């Protein structure tokens, strides 16, 4: 530090160096507000990390608890068990067992019943016609119930199953009356029975009588299937059903309670679509691979710091901070994913991107001399006029602002693990993983510690080694919103956060520079 001997300097230094003035209170308030605001910025960094952790937690949970997607037949049996006991000999009891063959058989039976009724209705009165209509509707509902029940067999929602049971009960009423009518041929009798069913609760006796009447109407094959579809056929179904082979009946029965608890807590469909009758089907779920082609762009962020508090280093740090502004990051890439049916996916690909940092400084070598000439006319008391010429010369330095752009090109390999939440025509993915840098080139200029402009391109003479040869490893996390255009093609938008684990500056360099990117990926996905 310099200490001048100039008396003027001494006067000002002595009087003002330790002079204090109290600022107005609002200054402190604004400082406090600004500091609190800055602390919120940390969430920009924490949020993607939390997102990554959540994705990992879901992944782990999905691995520990058997996913309902892979246990469709189990859930179907679990939930349909009470229905079977109540309708032991009814037609619908076989529907809820998950046996597709039985479903098809019954569907055909319903159509036959409806057709038979239609033919007989040609000779009946208007009352009968109304009945035919109601019966056809009943058959239609029955088919719908089977479809829903069929979706249960592929493993979907407990709630959907409960609702299916209700539909089955209603259909049972209608179809029972239809069967009764077919066997007796008496319209009035059929109406009475139907009324009885509407007024009373479903009873096991009535269901049994209905099935016996169906048997007399010639549907012996159907009746035999129905009669075998109660709890007694449980083991048979378990062994016949392909999707059920993983779980032996004994094992299932032993762990019945635990299984129910697991299913009730991990049913994604019930969690995401509690008001949906049918659980949405994910078109890509049955597909093994997904190919993504995407463009990526976003904002580059850079932080410069130093662990050395020596004055010159701090000056250099401030110099670089004041002259460099991170701008953008753009690129494109391709990646391949393996999607499993439990929602977990693994992605890998290759991506090329280009980033830019703007350099602004005043060129010190540039100088300009400005000459101002002023002319004053002075008139004295005697009226004499004097013209006074005055010349002012000003030598200005740093007058040429220079703007330059430092460009960085990267070739990276992203590897991520994701979890997919299913939607009807869309899905949401949480992805997290790493990105390996394969190639890193840089072109441009920065200030060196001697306050001179130097190239950052290693191939240039006198270049400064302010950046690593390779960027090493980054962590990435993203949320993808994928909209299905067709069964195989979809488009997605995916905000992504990328943080470079190591500083991009070498260890021997006096400053430490770290980067992170906030990007948006837009692309097309082909599933196959």
């Amino acid at each position: 530090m310099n200490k001048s001997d100039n008396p003027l300097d001494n006067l000002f230094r002595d009087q003002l160096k330790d002079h204090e003035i109290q600022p107005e209170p609002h200054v402190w308030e604004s400082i406090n507000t600004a500091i609190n605001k800055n602390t919120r910025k940390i969430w920009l960094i924490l949020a993607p990390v939390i997102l990554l952790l959540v994705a990992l937690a879901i992944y782990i949970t999905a691995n520990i608890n058997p996913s309902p997607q892979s246990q469709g037949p189990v859930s179907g049996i679990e939930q349909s068990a009470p229905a079977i006991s109540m309708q032991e000999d009814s037609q619908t009891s076989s529907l809820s067992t998950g046996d597709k063959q039985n479903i098809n058989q019954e569907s055909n039976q319903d159509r036959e019943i409806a057709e038979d009724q239609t033919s007989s209705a040609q000779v009946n009165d208007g009352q009968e016609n109304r009945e035919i209509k109601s019966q056809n509707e009943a058959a239609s509902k029955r088919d719908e119930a089977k479809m829903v029940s069929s979706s249960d067999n592929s493993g979907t929602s407990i709630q959907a199953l409960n609702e299916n049971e209700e539909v089955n009960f209603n259909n049972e009423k209608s179809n029972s009356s239809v069967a009764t009518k077919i066997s007796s041929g008496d319209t009035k009798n059929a109406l009475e029975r139907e009324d009885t069913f509407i007024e009373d609760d479903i009873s096991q006796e009535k269901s049994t009588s209905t099935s016996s009447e169906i048997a007399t109407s010639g549907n012996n094959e159907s009746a035999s299937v129905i009669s075998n579809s109660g709890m007694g056929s449980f083991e048979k179904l378990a062994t016949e059903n392909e999707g059920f082979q993983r779980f032996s009946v004994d094992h299932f029965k032993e762990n019945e309670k635990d299984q129910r608890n697991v299913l009730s807590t991990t049913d994604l469909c019930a969690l995401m679509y509690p008001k949906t009758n049918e659980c949405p089907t994910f078109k890509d779920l049955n597909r093994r691979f997904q190919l993504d082609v995407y463009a990526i762009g976003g904002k580059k962020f850079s932080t410069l710091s130093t662990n050395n508090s020596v004055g010159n280093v701090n000056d250099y740090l401030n110099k670089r901070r004041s002259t460099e502004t991170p701008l953008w990051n753009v690129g494109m890439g391709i990646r391949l994913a393996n999607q499993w049916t439990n929602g977990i996916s693994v992605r890998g690909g290759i991506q090329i991107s280009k980033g830019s940092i703007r350099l602004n400084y005043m060129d010190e070598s540039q100088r300009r001399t400005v000459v101002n000439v002023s002319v004053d006319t002075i008139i004295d008391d005697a009226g004499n006029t004097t013209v006074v010429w005055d010349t002012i010369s000003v030598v200005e330095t740093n007058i040429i602002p220079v703007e330059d752009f430092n460009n960085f090109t990267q070739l990276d390999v992203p590897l991520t693990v994701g979890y997919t939440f299913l939607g009807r025509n869309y899905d949401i993915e949480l992805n997290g993983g790493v990105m390996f840098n394969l190639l890193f080139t840089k072109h441009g200029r920065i200030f060196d510690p001697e306050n001179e402009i130097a190239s950052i391109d290693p191939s240039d003479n006198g270049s400064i080694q302010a950046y690593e040869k390779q960027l090493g490893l980054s962590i990435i996390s993203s949320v993808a919103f994928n909209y299905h255009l067709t069964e195989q093609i979809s488009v997605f938008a995916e905000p992504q956060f990328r943080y470079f684990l190591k500083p991009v500056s070498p260890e021997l360099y006096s400053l430490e520079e770290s980067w992170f990117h906030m990007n948006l990926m837009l692309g097309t996905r082909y599933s196959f």
Partner: protein
Amino acid sequence: MFALCMRYARHKLEAEDIMQEGFIKAFENLDSFRSEGSLEGWIRTIMVHTAIKNYNRSSFQKESIGIEHLPEDTMYPEAYGDLNRNELLNLIKELPEGYRVVFNMYAIEGYKHKEIARMLNIGESTSRSQLVKARKLLQSMIEKLYTVLL
């Protein structure tokens, strides 16, 4: 600290901005403060740097006057004792931007011309000439003030 900001700023609002920015910087970089020096000195350095940054981005930094207009060296040491702090502060604030920053850094903060040149991105000769001009202007202003007081 506010007095320091007032010395570098053109007006009170600018001084408040410098002070706010400086304190936020200090808060954000508090972990980099080593207990080798005083906290006050550390914050003071940050304030000076913030004021310089503010000066660098100011559109008024080229504000200057010709040295031809400056009066010859006149000394009124007897006047110095009659000036209070606020008057001195007002005199500094009346200096053109470039002069004020260099004078503050050299005469009051104690920086060398080499350091000033590096921090302000100017040549050392520029720093010296700015200081000379600042002194002459201040002397001129003191002379006028002293004359009025007499």
